[in-house]
Protein backbone atom coordinates (compact mmCIF):
# COMPACT_ATOMS: atom_id res chain seq x y z
CA UNK A 1 0.00 0.00 0.00
CA UNK A 2 2.72 2.41 0.93
CA UNK A 3 5.90 3.23 -0.94
CA UNK A 4 8.83 5.51 -0.36
CA UNK A 5 9.37 8.16 -3.02
CA UNK A 6 12.53 10.18 -3.30
CA UNK A 7 11.76 13.82 -4.06
CA UNK A 8 13.81 16.94 -4.44
CA UNK A 9 12.65 20.43 -3.60
CA UNK A 10 13.78 23.86 -2.51
CA UNK A 11 12.49 24.89 0.88
CA UNK A 12 12.42 28.32 2.49
CA UNK A 13 12.79 28.62 6.26
CA UNK A 14 11.34 31.70 7.92
CA UNK A 15 13.76 33.62 10.16
CA UNK A 16 11.55 33.00 13.19
CA UNK A 17 12.43 29.31 12.89
CA UNK A 18 16.19 29.80 12.76
CA UNK A 19 16.38 28.80 16.41
CA UNK A 20 15.04 25.33 15.63
CA UNK A 21 17.45 22.61 14.45
CA UNK A 22 17.56 22.91 10.65
CA UNK A 23 16.46 19.33 9.96
CA UNK A 24 13.34 19.67 12.10
CA UNK A 25 12.46 22.97 10.51
CA UNK A 26 12.87 21.46 7.04
CA UNK A 27 10.77 18.40 7.80
CA UNK A 28 8.04 20.54 9.30
CA UNK A 29 8.07 22.82 6.26
CA UNK A 30 7.95 19.85 3.86
CA UNK A 31 5.10 18.25 5.76
CA UNK A 32 3.20 21.51 5.57
CA UNK A 33 3.56 21.46 1.81
CA UNK A 34 3.10 17.79 0.97
CA UNK A 35 1.14 15.98 3.68
CA UNK A 36 -2.26 14.76 2.49
CA UNK A 37 -1.63 15.97 -1.04
CA UNK A 38 -1.85 13.98 -4.26
CA UNK A 39 1.19 14.25 -6.49
CA UNK A 40 0.53 13.46 -10.11
CA UNK A 41 1.62 9.91 -11.00
CA UNK A 42 3.16 9.51 -7.55
CA UNK A 43 0.25 9.01 -5.18
CA UNK A 44 -1.11 10.44 -1.97
CA UNK A 45 1.64 11.83 0.24
CA UNK A 46 1.33 10.89 3.89
CA UNK A 47 4.36 12.46 5.53
CA UNK A 48 8.10 12.90 5.23
CA UNK A 49 10.04 9.74 6.06
CA UNK A 50 13.45 11.36 6.38
CA UNK A 51 15.86 13.77 4.72
CA UNK A 52 18.52 12.27 2.47
CA UNK A 53 20.49 15.37 1.54
CA UNK A 54 20.23 19.02 2.37
CA UNK A 55 22.41 21.77 1.00
CA UNK A 56 23.68 24.82 2.80
CA UNK A 57 20.93 27.36 3.53
CA UNK A 58 21.28 30.41 1.29
CA UNK A 59 19.88 33.88 1.66
CA UNK A 60 18.53 35.42 -1.50
CA UNK A 61 18.16 39.03 -2.31
CA UNK A 62 14.78 40.34 -1.30
CA UNK A 63 13.74 38.26 1.68
CA UNK A 64 15.25 37.05 4.89
CA UNK A 65 14.47 33.39 4.33
CA UNK A 66 17.08 30.66 4.27
CA UNK A 67 16.63 28.61 1.11
CA UNK A 68 17.65 24.95 1.27
CA UNK A 69 17.89 22.46 -1.55
CA UNK A 70 16.65 19.21 -0.05
CA UNK A 71 16.40 15.60 -1.21
CA UNK A 72 13.99 13.74 1.00
CA UNK A 73 11.95 10.57 1.18
CA UNK A 74 8.20 10.66 1.39
CA UNK A 75 5.79 8.00 2.59
CA UNK A 76 3.26 7.75 -0.23
CA UNK A 77 0.00 5.82 -0.47
CA UNK A 78 0.11 4.07 -3.84
CA UNK A 79 -1.18 0.51 -3.87
CA UNK A 80 0.28 -1.36 -6.85
CA UNK A 81 -1.87 -3.12 -9.44
CA UNK A 82 -2.94 -6.60 -8.28
CA UNK A 83 -2.28 -5.76 -4.63
CA UNK A 84 -4.93 -6.99 -2.22
CA UNK A 85 -6.09 -4.40 0.29
CA UNK A 86 -8.78 -4.21 2.93
CA UNK A 87 -11.21 -1.30 2.88
CA UNK A 88 -14.63 -0.28 4.10
CA UNK A 89 -17.69 0.31 1.93
CA UNK A 90 -18.44 4.02 1.97
CA UNK A 91 -21.45 4.09 -0.32
CA UNK A 92 -23.09 2.26 -3.21
CA UNK A 93 -24.95 3.39 -6.31
CA UNK A 94 -25.98 2.09 -9.74
CA UNK A 95 -22.48 2.53 -11.11
CA UNK A 96 -20.68 0.65 -8.42
CA UNK A 97 -19.35 0.77 -4.89
CA UNK A 98 -17.19 3.42 -3.31
CA UNK A 99 -14.66 2.33 -0.70
CA UNK A 100 -12.65 4.11 1.94
CA UNK A 101 -9.46 3.40 3.85
CA UNK A 102 -10.01 6.31 6.23
CA UNK A 103 -7.36 8.68 4.95
CA UNK A 104 -8.28 8.09 1.29
CA UNK A 105 -11.70 7.39 -0.18
CA UNK A 106 -11.51 7.64 -3.95
CA UNK A 107 -11.50 3.88 -4.31
CA UNK A 108 -14.17 2.44 -6.56
CA UNK A 109 -15.47 -0.95 -7.62
CA UNK A 110 -17.31 -0.52 -10.93
CA UNK A 111 -20.23 -2.86 -11.64
CA UNK A 112 -18.11 -4.84 -14.10
CA UNK A 113 -15.79 -5.88 -11.28
CA UNK A 114 -18.53 -7.21 -9.02
CA UNK A 115 -19.06 -10.97 -8.79
CA UNK A 116 -21.66 -12.22 -11.32
CA UNK A 117 -24.63 -12.32 -11.21
CA UNK A 118 -25.11 -9.19 -9.22
CA UNK A 119 -27.73 -6.45 -9.04
CA UNK A 120 -28.33 -3.15 -7.33
CA UNK A 121 -31.23 -3.01 -4.91
CA UNK A 122 -32.49 0.59 -4.91
CA UNK A 123 -34.49 0.06 -1.72
CA UNK A 124 -31.51 -1.08 0.30
CA UNK A 125 -29.10 1.16 -1.64
CA UNK A 126 -26.74 -1.77 -1.86
CA UNK A 127 -25.49 -4.30 -4.38
CA UNK A 128 -26.16 -7.95 -3.78
CA UNK A 129 -24.66 -11.11 -5.19
CA UNK A 130 -26.65 -14.26 -5.93
CA UNK A 131 -24.34 -17.22 -5.45
CA UNK A 132 -25.15 -20.33 -7.49
CA UNK A 133 -27.66 -18.56 -9.69
CA UNK A 134 -27.75 -18.17 -13.45
CA UNK A 135 -30.23 -15.33 -13.66
CA UNK A 136 -29.11 -12.54 -15.93
CA UNK A 137 -31.80 -9.89 -15.94
CA UNK A 138 -31.85 -7.36 -13.14
CA UNK A 139 -35.62 -7.51 -12.63
CA UNK A 140 -35.48 -11.30 -12.29
CA UNK A 141 -32.79 -10.98 -9.68
CA UNK A 142 -34.79 -8.40 -7.79
CA UNK A 143 -37.63 -10.94 -7.57
CA UNK A 144 -35.55 -13.49 -5.71
CA UNK A 145 -36.18 -14.09 -2.02
CA UNK A 146 -34.12 -11.77 0.14
CA UNK A 147 -32.70 -14.70 2.10
CA UNK A 148 -30.72 -15.86 -0.95
CA UNK A 149 -29.05 -12.53 -1.56
CA UNK A 150 -25.60 -11.70 -0.34
CA UNK A 151 -25.68 -7.95 0.29
CA UNK A 152 -22.64 -5.71 0.30
CA UNK A 153 -23.79 -3.20 2.88
CA UNK A 154 -22.43 0.16 3.77
CA UNK A 155 -19.68 0.03 6.38
CA UNK A 156 -18.82 -3.57 5.55
CA UNK A 157 -15.15 -4.53 5.47
CA UNK A 158 -14.18 -5.84 2.05
CA UNK A 159 -11.07 -7.40 0.63
CA UNK A 160 -10.40 -6.04 -2.85
CA UNK A 161 -7.79 -6.36 -5.55
CA UNK A 162 -6.42 -3.16 -7.05
CA UNK A 163 -6.91 -3.23 -10.83
CA UNK A 164 -5.84 0.20 -11.97
CA UNK A 165 -5.26 3.74 -10.83
CA UNK A 166 -5.86 7.02 -12.64
CA UNK A 167 -4.52 10.46 -12.06
CA UNK A 168 -6.36 13.53 -13.28
CA UNK A 169 -4.81 16.93 -13.37
CA UNK A 170 -7.77 19.06 -14.36
CA UNK A 171 -7.11 22.68 -14.85
CA UNK A 172 -9.90 25.19 -15.20
CA UNK A 173 -8.67 26.45 -18.59
CA UNK A 174 -10.32 29.19 -20.61
CA UNK A 175 -14.03 28.86 -21.42
CA UNK A 176 -14.50 27.56 -24.96
CA UNK A 177 -16.98 29.91 -26.52
CA UNK A 178 -15.92 28.75 -29.99
CA UNK A 179 -17.69 25.45 -29.33
CA UNK A 180 -20.98 27.32 -29.49
CA UNK A 181 -22.50 25.54 -26.56
CA UNK A 182 -20.74 25.92 -23.29
CA UNK A 183 -19.27 22.49 -22.76
CA UNK A 184 -20.30 21.40 -19.34
CA UNK A 185 -17.26 19.71 -17.97
CA UNK A 186 -17.66 16.68 -15.83
CA UNK A 187 -18.11 17.43 -12.21
CA UNK A 188 -14.80 17.78 -10.44
CA UNK A 189 -12.83 14.58 -10.81
CA UNK A 190 -10.75 13.42 -7.91
CA UNK A 191 -7.05 13.83 -8.71
CA UNK A 192 -6.31 10.21 -7.83
CA UNK A 193 -8.67 7.27 -8.26
CA UNK A 194 -8.08 3.63 -7.52
CA UNK A 195 -10.19 1.04 -9.34
CA UNK A 196 -10.64 -2.28 -7.55
CA UNK A 197 -12.25 -5.62 -8.21
CA UNK A 198 -14.05 -8.18 -6.06
CA UNK A 199 -14.93 -10.52 -8.94
CA UNK A 200 -12.75 -13.36 -7.77
CA UNK A 201 -12.83 -16.16 -5.24
CA UNK A 202 -11.77 -14.93 -1.84
CA UNK A 203 -12.51 -11.26 -2.52
CA UNK A 204 -15.51 -9.31 -1.31
CA UNK A 205 -16.81 -8.81 2.22
CA UNK A 206 -14.42 -10.43 4.66
CA UNK A 207 -17.35 -11.96 6.54
CA UNK A 208 -18.38 -14.03 3.48
CA UNK A 209 -15.14 -15.94 3.57
CA UNK A 210 -14.50 -16.12 7.28
CA UNK A 211 -17.80 -17.89 7.83
CA UNK A 212 -17.37 -20.25 4.88
CA UNK A 213 -16.38 -23.80 5.79
CA UNK A 214 -12.99 -25.28 5.12
CA UNK A 215 -14.30 -27.85 2.64
CA UNK A 216 -16.06 -25.23 0.56
CA UNK A 217 -12.92 -23.18 0.29
CA UNK A 218 -10.98 -26.10 -1.07
CA UNK A 219 -13.66 -26.57 -3.70
CA UNK A 220 -13.42 -22.89 -4.62
CA UNK A 221 -9.74 -23.13 -5.14
CA UNK A 222 -10.03 -25.90 -7.64
CA UNK A 223 -12.57 -23.86 -9.55
CA UNK A 224 -10.37 -20.82 -9.51
Amino acid at each position, binding site marked *: *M*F*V*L*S*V*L*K*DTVAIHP*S*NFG*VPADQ*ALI*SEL*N*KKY*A*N*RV*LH*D*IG*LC*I*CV*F*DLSEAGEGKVRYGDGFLWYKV*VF*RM*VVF*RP*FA*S*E*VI*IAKVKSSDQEGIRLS*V*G*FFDDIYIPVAYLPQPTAFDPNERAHFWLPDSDLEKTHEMLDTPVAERMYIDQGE*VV*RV*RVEADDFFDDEPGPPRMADGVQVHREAKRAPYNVVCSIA*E*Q*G*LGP*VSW*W*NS*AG*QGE*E*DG*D*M*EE*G
Partner: protein
Amino acid sequence: MEVVNARAALLSNYEVLSLLREQESDHLARAKTAVRVKKEEEAAGHPPRPLGEATFGEPSENLRTVEIEAIQYLSADYLPTTRQTADGISQLVKDLAPYELTKAEKLQVVNLAPALPVELYVIVEELEDRLGDRMEHILNHVQSGLSDAPAPAPSSSDVYSAVQAPNKTSTLAESYQHEEYHEEIVFDDVGEGAGIEGDLDMEED
Protein backbone atom coordinates in the same frame (compact mmCIF):
# COMPACT_ATOMS: atom_id res chain seq x y z
CA MET B 1 9.72 19.94 -6.96
CA GLU B 2 11.44 17.16 -8.77
CA VAL B 3 10.86 13.44 -8.55
CA VAL B 4 14.10 11.52 -8.14
CA ASN B 5 12.57 8.08 -7.71
CA ALA B 6 8.84 7.51 -7.49
CA ARG B 7 9.25 4.05 -6.01
CA ALA B 8 12.43 3.76 -4.04
CA ALA B 9 11.09 1.06 -1.75
CA LEU B 10 7.94 -0.56 -0.50
CA LEU B 11 6.84 0.02 3.07
CA SER B 12 4.87 -2.40 5.15
CA ASN B 13 1.83 -1.18 7.05
CA TYR B 14 3.63 -1.84 10.30
CA GLU B 15 6.45 0.52 9.41
CA VAL B 16 4.05 3.27 8.42
CA LEU B 17 2.07 2.82 11.60
CA SER B 18 5.13 2.98 13.84
CA LEU B 19 6.42 6.04 11.99
CA LEU B 20 3.08 7.83 12.37
CA ARG B 21 2.76 6.91 16.03
CA GLU B 22 6.26 8.11 16.75
CA GLN B 23 5.47 11.39 15.01
CA GLU B 24 2.26 11.79 16.91
CA SER B 25 3.94 11.35 20.28
CA ASP B 26 6.61 13.82 19.13
CA HIS B 27 3.93 16.36 18.38
CA LEU B 28 2.26 15.78 21.71
CA ALA B 29 5.53 16.19 23.57
CA ARG B 30 6.28 19.36 21.65
CA ALA B 31 2.83 20.77 22.28
CA LYS B 32 3.26 20.10 25.99
CA THR B 33 6.63 21.84 26.04
CA ALA B 34 5.16 24.79 24.18
CA VAL B 35 2.38 25.13 26.74
CA ARG B 36 4.85 24.87 29.60
CA VAL B 37 7.17 27.48 28.10
CA LYS B 38 4.25 29.81 27.56
CA LYS B 39 3.12 29.45 31.15
CA GLU B 40 6.59 30.05 32.48
CA GLU B 41 6.94 33.15 30.38
CA GLU B 42 3.61 34.46 31.55
CA ALA B 43 4.55 33.78 35.13
CA ALA B 44 7.80 35.65 34.62
CA GLY B 45 5.83 38.58 33.31
CA HIS B 46 7.04 38.48 29.69
CA PRO B 47 4.74 40.09 27.19
CA PRO B 48 2.86 37.54 25.03
CA ARG B 49 4.78 36.55 21.93
CA PRO B 50 3.61 37.88 18.61
CA LEU B 51 1.47 35.48 16.67
CA GLY B 52 3.28 33.07 14.43
CA GLU B 53 6.41 32.99 16.48
CA ALA B 54 5.50 30.32 18.96
CA THR B 55 3.73 28.16 16.42
CA PHE B 56 6.70 26.08 15.35
CA GLY B 57 6.24 22.44 16.11
CA GLU B 58 2.53 22.66 15.70
CA PRO B 59 1.87 20.32 12.80
CA SER B 60 -0.11 21.63 9.88
CA GLU B 61 -3.77 20.81 9.56
CA ASN B 62 -3.16 18.47 6.62
CA LEU B 63 -0.54 16.48 8.46
CA ARG B 64 -2.75 16.11 11.51
CA THR B 65 -5.68 14.93 9.40
CA VAL B 66 -3.83 12.34 7.39
CA GLU B 67 -1.88 11.18 10.43
CA ILE B 68 -4.94 10.59 12.57
CA GLU B 69 -6.94 8.96 9.80
CA ALA B 70 -4.09 6.70 8.76
CA ILE B 71 -3.42 5.63 12.35
CA GLN B 72 -7.11 4.89 12.73
CA TYR B 73 -7.17 2.74 9.61
CA LEU B 74 -3.95 0.90 10.38
CA SER B 75 -4.94 0.12 13.95
CA ALA B 76 -8.43 -1.08 13.03
CA ASP B 77 -9.27 -4.54 14.31
CA TYR B 78 -9.71 -5.95 10.81
CA LEU B 79 -6.04 -5.34 10.08
CA PRO B 80 -3.36 -7.32 11.90
CA THR B 81 -0.97 -4.36 12.14
CA THR B 82 -1.40 -3.65 15.85
CA ARG B 83 -0.72 -7.27 16.74
CA GLN B 84 2.58 -7.26 14.86
CA THR B 85 6.03 -6.61 16.19
CA ALA B 86 9.22 -5.72 14.38
CA ASP B 87 10.94 -8.98 15.30
CA GLY B 88 7.83 -10.95 14.47
CA ILE B 89 7.88 -9.51 10.96
CA SER B 90 11.59 -9.98 10.36
CA GLN B 91 11.22 -13.56 11.55
CA LEU B 92 8.26 -14.07 9.23
CA VAL B 93 10.16 -12.70 6.25
CA LYS B 94 13.00 -15.11 7.00
CA ASP B 95 10.57 -17.98 7.36
CA LEU B 96 9.03 -17.14 3.99
CA ALA B 97 12.37 -17.22 2.18
CA PRO B 98 12.26 -20.92 1.16
CA TYR B 99 8.84 -20.60 -0.50
CA GLU B 100 10.05 -18.48 -3.42
CA LEU B 101 7.39 -15.83 -3.12
CA THR B 102 7.89 -12.53 -4.92
CA LYS B 103 8.57 -9.41 -2.91
CA ALA B 104 5.08 -8.10 -3.55
CA GLU B 105 3.57 -11.34 -2.31
CA LYS B 106 5.69 -11.30 0.81
CA LEU B 107 4.69 -7.71 1.47
CA GLN B 108 1.03 -8.64 1.26
CA VAL B 109 1.48 -11.66 3.50
CA VAL B 110 3.07 -9.33 6.05
CA ASN B 111 0.42 -6.63 5.65
CA LEU B 112 -2.64 -8.86 5.69
CA ALA B 113 -1.43 -11.78 7.83
CA PRO B 114 -3.69 -14.36 6.19
CA ALA B 115 -5.27 -16.80 8.62
CA LEU B 116 -7.27 -18.88 6.16
CA PRO B 117 -6.16 -20.68 3.00
CA VAL B 118 -8.59 -18.58 0.97
CA GLU B 119 -6.88 -15.39 2.12
CA LEU B 120 -3.53 -16.72 1.02
CA TYR B 121 -5.08 -17.81 -2.25
CA VAL B 122 -5.92 -14.24 -3.29
CA ILE B 123 -2.42 -13.04 -2.44
CA VAL B 124 -0.32 -15.73 -4.08
CA GLU B 125 -0.84 -16.42 -7.76
CA GLU B 126 -1.24 -20.06 -8.74
CA LEU B 127 -1.05 -21.07 -5.13
CA GLU B 128 -1.81 -24.73 -5.71
CA ASP B 129 0.91 -25.28 -8.31
CA ARG B 130 3.58 -23.32 -6.54
CA LEU B 131 3.03 -24.32 -2.97
CA GLY B 132 0.72 -27.33 -2.90
CA ASP B 133 0.54 -28.58 0.68
CA ARG B 134 3.06 -26.13 1.97
CA MET B 135 0.55 -23.31 2.32
CA GLU B 136 -0.40 -24.60 5.77
CA HIS B 137 3.20 -23.98 6.83
CA ILE B 138 3.00 -20.40 5.63
CA LEU B 139 -0.22 -19.84 7.57
CA ASN B 140 1.49 -21.24 10.67
CA HIS B 141 4.46 -18.94 10.20
CA VAL B 142 2.10 -15.98 9.88
CA GLN B 143 0.20 -16.89 13.03
CA SER B 144 3.35 -17.38 15.06
CA GLY B 145 4.43 -13.86 14.12
CA LEU B 146 1.35 -12.27 15.65
CA SER B 147 1.50 -11.34 19.30
CA ASP B 148 -1.76 -13.13 20.15
CA ALA B 149 -0.25 -16.44 19.25
CA PRO B 150 2.56 -18.00 21.30
CA ALA B 151 5.64 -15.92 20.71
CA PRO B 152 8.32 -17.36 18.43
CA ALA B 153 11.79 -18.02 19.74
CA PRO B 154 13.39 -14.58 20.09
CA SER B 155 16.30 -15.25 17.81
CA SER B 156 16.42 -11.73 16.46
CA SER B 157 15.99 -9.72 19.63
CA ASP B 158 18.96 -7.56 18.73
CA VAL B 159 17.15 -6.41 15.61
CA TYR B 160 14.07 -5.82 17.67
CA SER B 161 15.75 -3.59 20.20
CA ALA B 162 17.40 -1.59 17.46
CA VAL B 163 14.14 -1.04 15.67
CA GLN B 164 12.16 -0.40 18.81
CA ALA B 165 14.46 2.24 20.22
CA PRO B 166 12.81 5.65 20.16
CA ASN B 167 13.71 8.03 17.34
CA LYS B 168 15.28 5.25 15.38
CA THR B 169 13.32 5.65 12.19
CA SER B 170 16.64 5.93 10.48
CA THR B 171 17.41 2.35 11.47
CA LEU B 172 14.51 1.16 9.38
CA ALA B 173 15.55 3.41 6.58
CA GLU B 174 19.16 2.45 6.51
CA SER B 175 18.54 -1.24 6.56
CA TYR B 176 17.54 -1.41 2.94
CA GLN B 177 20.72 0.22 1.87
CA HIS B 178 22.28 -3.00 3.08
CA GLU B 179 19.94 -5.01 0.96
CA GLU B 180 22.55 -6.96 -0.94
CA TYR B 181 24.25 -7.87 2.24
CA HIS B 182 20.97 -8.77 3.79
CA GLU B 183 19.95 -11.12 1.02
CA GLU B 184 23.12 -13.07 1.41
CA ILE B 185 22.50 -13.72 5.05
CA VAL B 186 18.85 -14.43 4.72
CA PHE B 187 19.19 -17.88 6.28
CA ASP B 188 21.48 -16.63 8.98
CA ASP B 189 19.72 -17.02 12.32
CA VAL B 190 21.70 -14.28 13.99
CA GLY B 191 20.18 -11.83 11.57
CA GLU B 192 22.44 -8.96 12.47
CA GLY B 193 21.88 -5.87 10.45
CA ALA B 194 18.69 -7.27 9.04
CA GLY B 195 15.80 -4.86 8.97
CA ILE B 196 12.23 -5.92 8.90
CA GLU B 197 11.63 -4.73 5.39
CA GLY B 198 14.95 -5.78 3.97
CA ASP B 199 13.31 -8.42 1.86
CA LEU B 200 10.35 -6.35 0.86
CA ASP B 201 12.13 -3.62 -0.98
CA MET B 202 11.53 -3.29 -4.61
CA GLU B 203 14.06 -2.30 -7.18
CA GLU B 204 12.69 0.31 -9.44
CA ASP B 205 10.83 -1.43 -12.19
